[in-house]
């Protein structure tokens, strides 16, 4: 069974952290992963830096720009992650935009992920229909889950369709926004969480975008299986480097 599915069977609400590979320092990728696992994070999204990340706000974009400037590449990420499965057990997901993956070669990229022990991919600008027609088989052959996004504007019909082609979880974007642009959920957003929860989808939902502290994490996971924190963690890294990661994790989900 894929590590993501296995993890999702646990009872607790999932806390997932996003960070940009090669940030704040080029060799920080693996130490950060290990530290996050040690501090009880349930799974990790590793951001593959991209020059033009459309769905990200300034915090994540700046971290990508810096990582690229200090020499981060797709090859380098795979080199860094080599052997990661000897020491890290929690699910690892790569989040990246489609163009770098396309240039690497989708099949080669997927094979490399499988060799490395990556469990899934989140590619925001790879539409579900293109995935189904051109790439689904490659992902499946390499045991990779492709995680799709839904938003408050996604129609019920499309949500049902996305649910039918998903086999891990659905990434529920909390608000119509890029990453890191909101704090706290409106009544409207909570209604959206309730609406999706009432649809009884076959895949659990993990909420992302706009989650920065314990209170918002609890709101986000009231109706969903878990939540993903990205920009808030990057801000923590900006302020602390890779020190005090445990404190950050505890500030979201106290032990």
């Amino acid at each position, binding site marked *: 069974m894929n590590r993501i599915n296995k993890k999702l069977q646990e009872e607790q609400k999932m806390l997932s952290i996003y960070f940009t590979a090669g940030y704040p320092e080029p060799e920080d990728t693996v130490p950060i992963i290990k530290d996050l696992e040690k501090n009880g994070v349930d799974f990790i999204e590793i951001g593959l830096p991209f020059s033009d990340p459309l769905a990200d706000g300034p915090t994540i974009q700046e971290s990508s720009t810096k990582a*690229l400037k200090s020499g981060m590449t*797709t090859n380098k990420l795979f080199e860094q992650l080599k052997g990661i499965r000897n020491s890290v057990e929690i699910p690892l997901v790569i989040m990246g935009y489609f163009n770098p993956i396309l240039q690497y070669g989708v099949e080669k990229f997927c094979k490399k992920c499988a060799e490395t022990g990556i469990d899934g991919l989140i590619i925001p600008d790879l*539409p579900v229909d293109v995935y189904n027609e051109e790439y689904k088989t490659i992902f499946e052959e390499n045991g990779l889950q492709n995680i799709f996004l839904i938003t408050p*504007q996604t129609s019920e019909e499309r949500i049902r369709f996305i649910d039918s082609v998903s086999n891990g979880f659905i990434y529920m974007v909390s608000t119509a926004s890029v990453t890191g642009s909101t704090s706290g959920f409106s009544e409207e957003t909570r209604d959206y969480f309730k609406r999706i929860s009432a649809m009884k989808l076959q895949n659990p939902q993990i909420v992302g975008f706009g989650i920065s502290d314990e209170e918002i994490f609890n709101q986000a996971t009231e109706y969903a299986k878990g939540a993903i924190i990205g920009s808030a963690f990057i801000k923590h890294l900006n302020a602390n480097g890779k020190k005090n990661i445990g404190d950050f994790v505890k500030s979201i989900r106290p032990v």
Partner: protein
Amino acid sequence: MSYQANEKGYYGDFGGAFIPEMLYPNVEELRSQYLEIMKEESFQKEFKDLLRDYVGRPTPLYYAKRFSEKYNTKIYLKREDLCHTGAHKVNNTVGQILMAKRLGKDRIIAETGAGQHGVATATVCALMGIECIVYMGEIDIERQAPNVARMKMLGAKVVPAKSGSRTLKDATNEAIRDWINNPLDTHYIIGSVVGPHPYPDMVARFQAVISEEIKVQLKEKENRENPDYVVACVGGGSNAAGIYYHYLDNPEVGIIAVEAAGKGIQSGESAATSALGKEGIIHGSKTLLMQTDDGQITEPYSISAGLDYPGVGPMHANLFRSGRGEFISITDKAAMDAGQELAKLEGIIPAIETSHALAIFEDRKFKKDDVIVINLSGRGDKDLSTYIDYFGL
């Protein structure tokens, strides 16, 4: 074989809609309605009336006698520089503002490089009384000051894009982010034949008025509808799409696309996508794209803000790959000299974008009786400070 977009928005291998789910509803709303709306009689009437009475169409097809004599061939200039606001961009913004109204949108966003599209968008928003926000790279804001002032005077808010190369590519990223953040009330008026389907096709259809008029005008002047060649500069490629449109599937008409070589194709400071680009995805479209081996988008360079873009529209990528279009790269220097030459020979100061297209004659020879139509896509007023600095005027 057709060089138009198919129903999924592909030109051969290029096109499509590679967009985050956050944009799907916006793009799908437009995609499912744009052709029907454009077919409506009331839409066509309003569009054509505005093009005639507000934009000032048809624009003249001018036989450039002295310029033709110099290069020993027959050169016609399609005078899009005489459109209201000074460039062809307004054809598309008039069309899209009418589209936005029919979609019930009351907020407009746009990106701009040289500022021509920003001005054209601000203009139609003023005309319709709709809020307008224009994203523009910080560097372009500096080098296109008159257009920034015009946009402000027209009531638009100009927002500087401070990321990346701080030019058109980054302004486009910011505009897309704004659209993600405002999915319900906002229409994004893209200024070129780039972006996710249906934008390249929709913008090309609005700009197609250019080749439609040429057919009529050339019949009057040369007793033939088809020139031997149609020529245009290509950044994203909207003026080119407009002059090629009715000739795309007519192999008798040669298609010439002129790109900005900047300081030279191999100088590392260039925007010549057909020479330097590989297949990739930018701003929601699969096309030819200047990028690193690792798939990071390269920062382009051109003296012309309007050509300073690392990709081309998917229509043009297909014209290049299929061999239907002949692609020529022109350096900053050759373009500036051609702009100066046209001013002296014909009394027309062209936009620096257009000067690239005018510069092909030194190297590309034509027969004496060849009929060549060049899209004179915009006027050079906005570029005067660049011309002044360059020539020490």
